[in-house]
């Protein structure tokens, strides 16, 4: 395949996405979710394009992006670590796990490592309370943790 005028594949994916949802009621949140799946976050240019295509003011889109915890306006790590600080994890020592993760990576809640390998987020509950304390790395849930298990778990993710 050779074509000098070939469009950026991400841009193409976004256009296909917008074509699919154009004119649908209540499309904004799924569009933002899938745009974030494409780029890993929500770049300004993509938001402007969504605004034009779906005919929703950019201010309103920005309002939605900043309301929900799931949307991110800056690039994130390849691996997202969600540390559960819910009630069940709290009473079973979730804070110590959280401390250790931050210590191992040298970053704080909500931050991303410089090499973009990891982002840490604290979350309120991931619904695996029976195995508290738990963390989630991407879609993998790790339960019944002790702080000393953290380095080995982190090593599994590149």
């Amino acid at each position: 395949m050779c074509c000098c005028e070939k469009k950026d594949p991400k841009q193409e994916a976004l256009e296909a996405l917008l074509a699919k949802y154009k004119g649908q009621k209540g499309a904004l949140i799924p569009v933002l979710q899938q745009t974030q799946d494409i780029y890993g976050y929500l770049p300004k240019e993509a938001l402007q394009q969504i605004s034009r295509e779906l005919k929703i003011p950019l201010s309103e889109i920005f309002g939605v992006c900043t309301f929900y915890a799931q949307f991110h306006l800056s690039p994130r790590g390849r691996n997202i670590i969600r540390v559960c600080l819910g009630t069940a994890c709290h009473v079973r020592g979730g804070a110590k796990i959280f401390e250790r993760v931050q210590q191992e990576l040298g970053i704080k809640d909500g931050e991303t490592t410089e090499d973009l390998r990891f982002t840490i987020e604290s979350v309120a509950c991931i619904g695996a309370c029976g195995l508290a304390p738990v963390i989630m790395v991407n879609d993998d849930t790790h339960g019944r943790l002790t702080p000393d298990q953290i380095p080995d778990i982190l090593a599994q993710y590149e």
Partner: protein
Amino acid sequence: MISLAEKRKEYQNRLVEKAKKTVIVVGMGTCGIAAGGDKVWQALENAVKNKNLDIELVYSGCIGLCYVEPIMEVHRPDMPRVIYGNVNGETALKILEEHALNGKVVSDLAVAQDPKEGKTVLPEIPILNEMPFYKKQVKTAIANCGIINPDSIEEYIAYGGYEALEKVLSSMSQTQVIEEVKKSGLRGRGGGGFPTGLKWEFAYKSPGDKKYVICNADEGDPGAFMDRSVLEGDPHAVLEGMAICGYAIGADEGYIYVRAEYPLAIKRLENAIAQAEKAGLLGENILGSGFNFKLRIKAGAGAFVCGEETALINSIEGKRGMPRVRPPFPAQSGLWNKPTNNNNVETYANIPGIIRKGADWFAGMGTEKSKGSKVFALTGKVNRTGLAEVPIGITIREIIFDIAGGIQNNKKFKAVQIGGPSGGCIPEEYLDTPVDYDSLTALGAMMGSGGLVVMDETTCMVDVARFFLNFTQKESCGKCTPCREGTKRMLEILNRICDGKGKPEDIDTLERLSNVIKSTALCGLGQSAPNPVLATLRYFRNEYEDHIHNKKCTAGVCTALLEYKIDPDKCKGCGACKKVCPVGAISGEKKEAHEIDAGKCIKCGSCIEKCKFDAIIKG
């Protein structure tokens, strides 16, 4: 109308055929997978494939025994079903070899057996229904969870699935369905406990040619995971319940709003919807009855307040998930300003059973004002964490001590948190209270979604109140002032108390603020936000006073109030604490009592964990 009876017979026969073979079931809910269920599956799948074994390997959702996850079961045609717990890839292969292939039970890993025709395998293995964890349970809403394959509509139908929908469409009028639900006494399982039939009736009576059904699967309460288990273990029950509701109120479209933190639930729901559409049980002209019902999934984007029904509606519409002023109620003007019925997952999952077995069967369980059964998520410092469905009216003590097996490590029970961040803590003296909507509310807690977090003597109640306030404060959407500003001020006060800087007037201020927020906040989240503080003040006021006046945290949690000391009589001078101390605060000669320099100590607690002689005292 098309009847499902023949299909059901066919699917049941298939199950009978399948039971003639040896079947291995692996528990693959999120909890099972997190505990290592996927590794067990991998090991078994490889073995079955490589050796070309005549064994059927299947997976199921969660059977509620979280404390022994990962779980696998072996069903041999000639033996009762045996449940194994705490298995790993290696032991799974051992069970495969010894039990599945050679009929010899691996007794040290067996958790329970389910006798077949009165026959048991080994007398020493507990009988499933007689185990303390199971004995007091009734399974209605989660009856299929962990039993059927959640990705198979055939199994759901074989177990009586979609029979209720067929019954409703073929022989009941809309009002008859609503009457039946009203008669059952079912109340909303998501928190408020509003009578479900009445809610349906409001939506039915609201004029309009377009109506909607919404399923609230935004299970946001920390400590609750029953809805996730239902969605992952028996998704069709929820779809069937929603379709019945759609017929009853006159809606042809529905949405399931699932929180984004539940990817597996979303996947299984998507599959279930596709299967139901293909089987003609969702979509146009269902079973040839002329009734249309289309279902869509909306994934949440991470906002606790979206569990509130009007905020959830805004979120489905693609807006910021902020609550609306009520009235008008969603039953009159909900999604896109059309009449809308909104119930949670467990409520819908109860509907097929009520229609199939009748309202009287359901109303036969429970108390006078709270009928049926309720699923509770048992977590915190109990011996057996898991999911248990019990008849409403059972006492809190029975749940915690009989089912969940009491407190871990022989510690003393202190309180149980019921109803998530909006609920309250209940102390020991009320443990014999029956669990029903009204008794719990009277105690300052609430049924909520059914999360039970058990706390022992090492939990500080002021810290717990602060934990919940921190949560609601972060999740406050900011629309109304009492919640946005009030919870912030309350949190500041609680932080101050935990840091040892509490002022004598703080307790009064907390109470005053709580009452203002309760009576003036816009939505349920704000109105209930002060509950954890009010409940702890009611039952554990002395702990607040200890923190403020004596600068003491008896539970040993609030770091600023702690002091670490070494008991010279118990200290053997082994030096383990000295080695582990990150700031070099411990000094002492070998074989002589050591000392902690309070000025240097950062109260991290590392020394306590290392000391083998219990010589370090925290207080």
